[in-house]
């Protein structure tokens, strides 16, 4: 059933390309219909996820589980599964997919069919990443989301698109090769111990630490994930990619693609290498915290609106890294919430930046000013998302950052104190957006149209989402709680050096 989801998107992408050559509108409607339909299809799983029982151990209860044999000789299977975390991220992906289609509706007029083909294929890859539990399959999807995104940036991007697309490709490609090496090593290690290859998540959980090269294997995964996250100092592809990507591409990049890195850390890296929490945790937290502050300062200095927002994204992702490596229920819930809330707030900000660029043909903040009078809707909505981004309580981002900080405070006080300074720097860069674009004296760009109904619709969805996550986050926290209880249980058992075959049999019995 889960593979059908991915397949539908792939087929819809092909159809969009085929029909888009004759009539662009058909391609748009195919993309919207397939994503929207799947969203409607997936939402009914939420009540089940909400009521999933919490096991503080290794028993795993997947909401949906699918296993087929693929390449038995190397122990490669088609394992796709959904739990609360995957489900929420899948929903986020589909929702932002719909919004990306809406944002591209009038912006993309060239080769429309091929555009939606790439968009849908990239999203299909992302869905695969969030559901795959076979390392090889995971890698397959990991690559599958890259190449369409490369085309999205390289073909429909702005003035410097080729440079940005190639930079994006090289960064992610090199880092994912390192991950591939680590994966092959883990499978080989399994062969040495058990006499057969396996890429299955259940076979490999906790085995990374047994290898004498465990640290280096862990590093391979780590680099792949933090390049995608991105974390300082591997973030440098992101400002270029974001700035140059078309609005739809930026929304997918910021809203969804970055989350695959965070997801990889939570789902794969820590469970595969639980010991790395001890020997690597403080360094990873330091990387996260440095990123929070460093990119906040850099963001403030930008004059390109999209570039500024791109740097704020990196800053917010630093909190995720901090939360993951603090690894307690508070900080993990916070990190996961940060993935969801940032998905909405960053996507909205990029959509706003794209809308402004579409109207006045510049992203330069120095050429903006006084927009409040002419486009009050855009102003009011930007203010809302700027407030979300600086962590205003009542909106989801506050809940996320507060949980991360409360959780990490119990683990590492100095790191948390430094990260908390990010609350001040976030205020500095968020307010400068409002000041430069919307306040101040009016500039020449007086006569731009305000948001239309399509844009208001997309914004309304994201505003409601952030208010929901800010005022009643329990819906999401309850969905996530069983996942973290069980991941935490697995990690603790492995840490205590419980005999691994029992763990594996536990995990398998639970399927």
């Amino acid at each position: 059933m889960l593979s059908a989801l991915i397949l539908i998107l792939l087929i819809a992408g092909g159809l969009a390309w085929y029909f888009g050559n004759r009539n662009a509108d058909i391609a748009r409607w195919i993309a919207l219909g397939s994503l929207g339909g799947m969203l409607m299809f997936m939402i009914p799983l939420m009540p089940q996820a909400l009521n999933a029982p919490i096991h503080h151990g290794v028993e795993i209860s997947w909401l949906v589980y699918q296993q087929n044999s693929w390449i038995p000789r190397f122990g490669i299977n088609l394992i796709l599964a959904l739990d609360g975390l995957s489900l929420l991220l899948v929903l986020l992906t589909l929702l932002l997919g719909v919004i990306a289609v809406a944002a591209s509706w009038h912006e993309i007029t060239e080769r429309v069919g091929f555009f939606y083909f790439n968009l849908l294929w990239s999203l299909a890859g992302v869905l695969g990443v969030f559901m795959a539990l076979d390392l090889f399959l995971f890698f397959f999807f990991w690559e599958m989301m890259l190449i369409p995104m490369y085309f999205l940036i390289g073909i429909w991007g702005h003035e410097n698109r080729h440079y940005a697309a190639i930079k994006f490709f090289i960064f992610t490609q090199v880092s994912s090769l390192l991950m591939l090496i680590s994966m092959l090593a883990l499978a080989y290690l399994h062969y040495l111990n058990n006499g057969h290859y396996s890429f299955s998540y259940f076979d490999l959980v906790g085995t990374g630490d047994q290898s004498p090269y465990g640290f280096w294997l862990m590093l391979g995964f780590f680099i792949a994930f933090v390049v995608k996250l991105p974390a300082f100092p591997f973030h440098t592809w992101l400002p270029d990619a974001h700035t140059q990507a078309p609005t739809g591409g930026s929304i997918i990049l910021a809203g969804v693609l970055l989350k695959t890195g965070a997801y990889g850390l939570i789902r794969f890296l820590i469970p595969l290498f639980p010991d790395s929490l001890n020997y690597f945790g403080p360094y990873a937290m330091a990387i996260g915290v440095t990123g929070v502050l460093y990119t906040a300062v850099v963001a403030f200095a930008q004059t390109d609106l999209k570039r500024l927002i791109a740097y704020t994204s990196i800053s917010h992702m630093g909190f995720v890294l901090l939360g993951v490596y603090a690894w307690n229920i508070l900080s993990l819930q916070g990190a996961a919430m940060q993935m969801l809330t940032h998905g909405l707030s960053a996507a909205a900000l990029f959509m706003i930046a794209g809308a402004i660029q579409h109207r006045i043909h510049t992203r330069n903040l120095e050429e903006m000013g006084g927009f409040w009078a002419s486009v009050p809707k855009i102003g009011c909505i930007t203010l809302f998302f700027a407030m979300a981004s600086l962590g205003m309580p009542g909106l989801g981002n506050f809940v996320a950052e507060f949980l991360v900080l409360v959780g990490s405070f119990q683990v590492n006080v100095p790191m948390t104190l430094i990260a908390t300074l990010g609350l001040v720097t976030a205020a500095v860069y968020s307010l400068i957006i409002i000041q430069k674009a919307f306040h101040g004296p009016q500039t020449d760009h007086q006569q731009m149209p305000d948001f239309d109904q399509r844009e208001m619709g997309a914004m309304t969805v994201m505003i409601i989402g952030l208010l929901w996550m800010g005022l009643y986050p329990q819906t999401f926290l309850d969905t996530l709680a069983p996942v973290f209880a069980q991941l935490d249980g697995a990690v603790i058992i492995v840490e205590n050096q419980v005999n691994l075959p029992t763990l594996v049999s536990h995990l398998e019995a639970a399927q």
Partner: protein
Amino acid sequence: MLKLLWLVPLLPLLSSVILILTKGKLDNTRVSYLGVGSVGLSALIAISCAINFNMAPPGSAYTQTLWQWIDVGTLQPSISFYLDGLSLVMMLVVTCVGFLIHLYASGYMYPDTDYSRFFACMNLFLAAMLILVLADNLLLLYLGWEGVGLCSYLLIGFWYKDPENGRAARKAFIITRVGDTAMAIGLFLLVRELGTLDIQQVMDQANHIWKQDSGYAAIIALLLLGGAVGKSAQLPLQSWLPDAMAGPTPVSALIHAATMVTAGVYLIARSHELFLLAPDIQMLVAVVGTLTLLLAGFSALTQTDIKRILAYSTISQIGYMFLALGVGAWSAGIFHLVTHAFFKALLFLSAGSVILALHHQQDIRKMGGLYKRIPFIFIAFLIGSACLAALPMTSGFFSKEPILAQAWSQSPILWLGGLLGAFLTALYSFRLIFVVFFGEVKTETHPLEVPEKEQWRMSSSLIALSLLALFGGALTLPLDRVLPASDPHAPIGIEALNTVLPIIGIYLAYQLFMKNPQWLDKVMTSPGAEKIKAFWFAGWGFDDLYDRLFRFPYLRLAAALGDDFADQISRITEKVSSYGHWLMGQTQTGSVRGYATVMTAGAIVVLAIGALS
């Protein structure tokens, strides 16, 4: 009626949401009915809650839980309101004074094109402020705390076309955020040590777990104090408030005098058990208050902008409240908060009327002789100033007197600071009276551009506030069971001094600014006087200091990092590979002889390697 408590913050919030969603399409009449009416209704509900609450047995508290907000591990804050004597007093001040200021503002802002946006922000502010005072846990309090900060930012920068206003708004937001960050760290520590953020539980557990002079209690009290000095504009985070006067005058009255800036006082009173466990920090509160009230008092003397004088006066009066909390005159501190809300709102609103009458002239050097032109406003302003100067029988007298008496019994030095401050207060407040309302007329008044009905609203608001300011001293606040009691009595000589010195200050003001201005000129010719004046005028140089310590370095850092040095490093690999590309390209010369030479040489080298190995 207590069951309706949730409506008190909800009504202004709802009105704000409606005003935002209608995007300014409503006409002014409808906006004012919605904006003022919702607050009025909320004030009525607050009053009926108060009546019901008074009938309950003394010392009881009422909690209303709306829903569970967050539930992760031990962190389980809910959206709950907590009503006891203290939050009741705050709720009444916020809704009633808030209503009167809204009423006034509906006239004052009438000519403004952004009438609807103004009321949307004001209503939102009141909702956030009410959540702040009613919150039963510190996380919800923090929500209100940040919410009022946001509205303060929006309203300071209300006239956004002038970049200076935007700068003042951001300054206010960022400086208070520094304090808020300290407070947030305090919350992290509370969660770690006590596992809860519920205010009553925190206080109970703190008393059980921590001993007197406990280190944790001291650190947490200090961090909360950090939040309080930011929001209440006390040393060292006071410098944003004078600039915040860039907002419309009703905003200054509501946010930057009567309610938001006193949130710090409320926070300390709310968490007084923590401060009682940490006497050193409590003493620090008193010291901060005393220093601030003196610094701001001297600065107020030198200002020339009528609103900036009142702003410094607000900082100084909140200093008194901090002094009161620090020396243990808890109830007196809250009492001063209440009376200050009355008379400072009155002062700001009547200053607003002066400013309107003079067509947005705020410089007092260009005012004079106004008591004949606008006698009604003169009387209102006079009442406000008399209360501010704590003349006997006014509300300010009844609230300031116990503070000074308690300060005397705790520490004569603090008392002396407070006394000097009282003298300064009288001096600068009557300087304002004499300069603005007496002497020769310098700027002529204009008729207001506000319709008759709205003018009447402004007047009735001023009358109501005047009555509150005059007779507010007769109120008794239901704080007995909430805050530790104190019964301050100082020797009769000290009390006499407390009473007489403000009168001397007024007499001196009369001499310096009315009767014998040449005395002042003489003082100013003495060496160094100009420098001191400039120093006080600039708020003791704090802006300059913070610019040098924080703002400029941050700007320099941002400029230096703007190109993202990490990106520069990653570009090195790019440069290396394109250099390699160029280098290899160089061998492509097109000369056949060259190719043949290299090929031969290569073949020889390969053969040699083969032969030798």
